């Protein structure tokens, strides 16, 4: 069963590249045929590489894709197909430009590329969209692609890794772009896994300072991209396998069915902790994520549970910590143990409320709106997006009591 990855914009392509590098190194290390077939295909490489990524790379300027392809070429293990879309100039950090101009201009070519990848595989498990929502391409073109893919693949699960911009400010128009993208994600995706740049950096700093006691941490995008990819490989992209009861465990379907069974509640947040001790790991995850409607905890490696002699210490069980709708999955793999919690939590509301409030302020003052109007977006469209997002906020509020 194969997963087709569509990576859009600078963020999407950089995260995607980190993912494929990690997957290919796992394949080379473990000689794992299943991972290979799931994410890559063989043939058509010549001597340049061993296999090709099942991936559609989309960007409105060439530098990032070229750099990813060049890095893959140097590794000589896997390669990317040459994208048919060769655009220059980017999307001006403008959702409307990305959606109405770039999206519509390249829509047919993107459709063809995705269709080619879908038909190439024997069976499709799911489509994953990697993008950011603060800029122009990942948000605007990403929304366009999501809408059209949902249209011609109504039954394939679409799971997104959507990166939210820094809360202190990364792009001046980020609130508009985020709000508009979220409305499309809520409408057309099955599961939206939110990644917040601010949290990623602070987590990376904590991890780094634990290692380098006195030096100041210098976190780069590669660090946070690797953190995203680690948690993807350890939880969102678990391998398919046949369970003891004969059922085939299909991670994408499972993710959607278990974590987002209610189509009104699609947002997932990711929490992780690296600890060898079970209680420490569970309590830390609980501290990070106080309430969870639906959860999956994936344990990677072996965690030490408290021994029977320490009877005062109760074993923190996921059921009691996170409610009855919490599953546990264990990956018996060697390496440092880690626990990842995928949670459908009401605290995702903040990521919906924040851009809504900011956009409301900015529209009241008329700030930046002329850039969006220039490319076909009207105030009415923004209001529709606010309604969709507002409804999701209400849905989460009712479930949080």
């Amino acid at each position, binding site marked *: 069963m194969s997963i087709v990855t569509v990576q859009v914009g600078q963020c999407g392509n950089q995260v995607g590249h980190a993912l494929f590098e990690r997957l290919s190194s796992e394949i080379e290390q473990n000689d794992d045929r299943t991972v290979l077939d799931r994410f890559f295909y063989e043939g058509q490489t010549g001597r340049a590489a061993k296999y090709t990524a099942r991936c559609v790379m989309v960007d409105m300027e060439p530098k990032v894709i070229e750099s990813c392809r060049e890095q893959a070429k140097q590794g000589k293990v896997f390669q990317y197909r040459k994208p048919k879309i060769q655009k220059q*100039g980017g999307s001006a950090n*403008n959702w409307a430009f990305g959606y109405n101009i770039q999206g519509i201009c390249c829509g047919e070519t993107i459709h063809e590329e995705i269709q080619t990848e879908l038909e190439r595989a024997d069976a499709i498990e799911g489509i994953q969209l990697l993008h950011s929502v603060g800029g122009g391409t990942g948000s605007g073109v990403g929304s366009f692609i999501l809408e059209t893919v949902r249209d011609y693949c109504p039954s394939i699960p679409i799971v997104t890794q959507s990166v939210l911009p820094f809360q202190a400010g990364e792009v001046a128009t980020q609130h508009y772009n985020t709000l508009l993208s979220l409305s499309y994600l809520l409408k057309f995706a099955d599961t939206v896994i939110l990644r917040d740049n601010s949290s990623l950096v602070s987590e990376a700093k904590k991890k780094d300072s634990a290692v380098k006691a006195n030096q100041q941490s210098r976190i780069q995008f590669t660090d946070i991209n690797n953190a995203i990819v680690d948690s993807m490989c350890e939880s969102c992209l678990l391998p398919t396998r046949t369970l003891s009861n004969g059922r085939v465990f299909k991670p994408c379907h499972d993710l959607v069915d278990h974590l987002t069974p209610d189509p009104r509640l699609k947002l997932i947040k990711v929490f992780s902790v690296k600890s060898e001790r079970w209680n420490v790991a569970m309590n830390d995850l609980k501290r990070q994520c106080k309430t969870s409607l639906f959860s999956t905890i994936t344990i990677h490696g072996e965690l030490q549970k408290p021994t029977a002699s320490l009877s005062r210490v109760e074993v923190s069980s996921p059921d009691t910590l996170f409610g009855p709708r919490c599953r546990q999955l264990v990956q018996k793999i060697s390496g440092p143990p880690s626990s990842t919690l995928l949670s459908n939590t009401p605290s995702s509301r903040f990521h919906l409320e924040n851009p809504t409030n900011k956009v409301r302020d900015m529209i009241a003052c008329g700030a930046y709106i002329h850039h969006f109007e220039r490319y076909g977006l009207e105030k009415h469209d923004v209001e529709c997006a606010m309604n969709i997002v507002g409804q999701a906020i209400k849905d989460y509020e009712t479930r949080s009591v």
Partner: protein
Amino acid sequence: CLQVGQCGNQIGCKFWDLALQEHLMYRGDGTVRKSTEKRVHLDDAMSSFFRTDARNISDDGTVSTQNIKARAVPIDMEEGVLESLLQGNLKTLFDKRHCIAGDTSGCGNNWAVGHMVYGQQCLSEVMEKVRHTTEDCDSLQTFLMLHSLGGGTGSGFGTRVLQELADEYPSIYRFVSPVFPQENDDVVTSPYNSVLSLGQLIDHADCVLPVDNQQLADIAVLSQSPQRGQKDSPSYQISQPGQVKSSRSGDRKGGEAFASMNYIVASMLTNLTASMRFPGQLNVDLNELTTNLVPFPSLKFIYSSVAPIALSKHGCSSASRRVTELFRDAFSRKCQLLTAPEFKPTYFASCILLRGDVSLSDATSNVEKLRQTLSLAPWSTEGFKVGLCSVPACESPVSLLSLTNNSGIVQSLSNIQNRFVKLYNVQAHLHHYTEYLEQEEIQEAYMKTSSLIESYEQAAKIKLPDGMRHSNSKLLF
């Protein structure tokens, strides 16, 4: 790049010199070239600004550095400056076919002569040359115009060309970097020329990055401090701008001073475009700058500042501390390329473009600090755009260009207006202009500038409607 008039061409020369040095130092993927390479690949990065004729490309795909041409259209209404350009160190960079010189008489520091007279005579020739240059481009995105506002050619003819570009190429961005005149400018009619030009810039430019000579001169002095390690930049040479005209401090010392000042503007321009040409963790294109920096259609005047201005010994500072110093300098009054206002301005939007060895966490933690220290407009508390380009500038391992849209521009615009009013009220020198245009047109330009000042003042006062106050400082980690 369209460089108009003496000032525009001199800055242009410095800009092209620096841009070429950058591309000869670094390849398009960020790796360092050997300084002995005489033939280079015209990679994608370089071809954003440079081109060559197909016949010059040899079988291995390289081209001699002598055959590289700038995508530039140098324009002047007299021959002196263009002659020295075509005979100076950079003569091979400029395509002689693309240079335009009107007849030898120049514009007499008269905007109206530049705009109306030469505007009529030479415009079609200029647009023809522009067309040739644009046809050589695979994907044209932006025009960059360099000129001064105080004289006649750069201001008058330059704005005529700008207007025509807006008509003929409406979807191509127009970035303009004008030099505002000084208080004690030796050109008496500079207030008229400036106000008339401003009227045009307000209508036809997408983004204006003004600089002023006074501030540039101050920065040039600061950067001449003995710590400046010229040895650190082996391949960089300051080109001679050629003979400086006698109407502007004609002695040799004046020429050298202008060379340093032009270099500062060139440095701003190369940093502005670095992310378009070289790879980085977070790329920023010029169209993104327009989206981020211009929150309302008329508010398009942007302060710029570059740090470091003087290469002090940074050996003992940690990389993070170096970045903090850059932020501190770039937001100080002394590093602004346009005189900063006396009052504390309200910031509408800022763009921070970092080059070199800068980590993401350095950038974000400093932006967070800025949010606390700057006076931000309430509707734009996250109005920051960050860019990270991996390839450093030629002479510094890390550098920062800050572009801010703030209400301080009101001061510079008001100064120009006041000087205009002093002359206009007594109708001094007005007859030179009324020969070619109606008084109403002059008044219209003045009104446009006034209403721009008013727009900035109003934008600074916008408060959020009551009941919409949200806690901006609450950040969820």
